[in-house]
């Protein structure tokens, strides 16, 4: 099942890429890459400019498979994102399982915004994704809007794997930075009395400061 997912990711890239970029991608899919983390990191970075923001064409069956695998909005993924997800899943497949958390963490720490976003959006596709929860929680502390959106929005990972404390902080931070909380996947299922209390306190703090309360706060309060 997992290997067929990586093949699907790769085929989306190969179908959508221009000839030269496709060649480059094929050359970088070798499993030996994972053993050389510098080469792997270069390939992971290079996927950005070589494959870029091109929109892949994906049939409805494949879209359904991607959704089933946990992607919330696969139709909005661009080629570079699919390529990075494929490279990452491949690399982990070639590494001993106990090295996975460190490998992903190092890749994240040395990545630029887009690389970090691609990792966060791909977490749900990785084997035993619960092992990456520390990284995902750390990512929520970012001040970089794109990175925060990558973990907080259209991503089922937090609702699936975060403890209440971390999930609640994510939701309040979304209000704080002006992100519509409707974009947080699985919010409805994760609402608790504590999260409602935090949202109500946030509204109260805003009112005391003479400031507007986010219009979508009822999504949490209700």
């Amino acid at each position, binding site marked *: 099942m997992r290997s067929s997912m990586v093949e699907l990711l790769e085929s989306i890239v190969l179908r959508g890429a221009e000839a030269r970029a496709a060649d480059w991608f094929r050359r970088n899919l070798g499993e030996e890459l994972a053993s050389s983390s510098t080469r792997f990191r270069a390939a992971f970075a290079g996927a950005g400019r070589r494959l870029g923001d091109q929109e892949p064409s994906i049939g409805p069956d494949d879209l359904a498979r991607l959704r089933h695998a946990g992607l919330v909005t696969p139709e909005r993924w661009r080629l570079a994102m699919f390529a990075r997800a494929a490279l990452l899943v491949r690399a982990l497949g070639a590494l001993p399982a106990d090295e996975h958390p460190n490998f992903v963490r190092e890749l994240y720490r040395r990545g630029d915004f887009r690389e970090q976003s691609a990792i966060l959006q791909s977490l749900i596709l990785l084997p035993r994704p619960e092992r990456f929860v520390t990284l995902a929680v750390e990512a929520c*502390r970012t001040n970089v809007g794109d990175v925060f959106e990558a973990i907080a929005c259209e991503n089922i990972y937090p609702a699936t794997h975060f403890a209440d404390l971390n999930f609640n*902080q994510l939701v309040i931070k979304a209000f704080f930075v002006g992100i519509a909380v409707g974009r947080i996947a699985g919010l409805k299922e994760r609402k608790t009395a504590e999260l409602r209390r935090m949202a109500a306190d946030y509204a109260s703090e805003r009112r005391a400061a003479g400031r507007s309360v986010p219009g979508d706060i009822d999504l949490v309060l209700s």
Partner: protein
Amino acid sequence: MQMFDPHVHMTSRTTDDYRAMAAAGIAAIVEPSFWLGQPRTHVGTFEDYFLSLVGWERFRARQFGIRHFCTIGLNPKEANNVDVAPGVMELLPIYLEKDGVVAVGEIGFDDQTPAETKLFEQQMQLALDFELPVLIHTPHRDKKAGTVRTIALVKASGIDPEMILIDHNTEETLPLTLDSGCWAGHSIYPDTKMDETRMVALVKQYGTRRIIINSAADWGVSDPLKVPKTVEAMRAAGIPEADIETIVWSNPVSFFGQSGRLDLGKQPIDQTALWEGNSVLRGGQKPLVEPA
């Protein structure tokens, strides 16, 4: 009027800021160690940061006639970073002992995690050991609950509340902070935290006792002139000069003076001075030298 900005991250600011701050009357500042906008990946980058706070940045401020002090601590956000937190905790005793370090800080809560609680408590103990006041950051998210927890932790620490400055207060947290006996800081910041008009209202309601204001200017959209701008707002609202001076000078001097390291003796500007061979001046610029 002589002013004190007791919370401003000058490392992120320019020489134009220093010049404007001095021109507006800011004579002394405290730069709390905090996070730099993105997580650090090595303990060594913390050490270089601490070194710049007690070294280059202090020198730079002095070139513009501003006395620079700092606080040293592991900020709450990065207290969660298991790769660096233990190493930074080992560095703290060395840097807390340095001249010009006038408090432990900023410490406190961000996400209010167990890791943050543990390092918050450990750093409160360092404050006791080094007989330093403490600058406590209150969280942006879940602020009121975070302030309640902060005050409980302060009480349990055994530190005299007189030695504690709880920062970034709002309308809802200020009464809690004042009731606790701690000093109350307010960050006058564009769009978030506190603004000038709201601050005037708080001063009218609560008076000046244990009230402190700062700009908290940093690498984000912020304004290092918020203290003088708030002085103007207070003046326009008819708050007496003596009260204003209490808030923007006497109070921070009293609080950080408890460190025994707040040396406010006049230092004339001498831009011919060098720090480890470096000057803030570039080729062709004329050094300003004030008479001693």
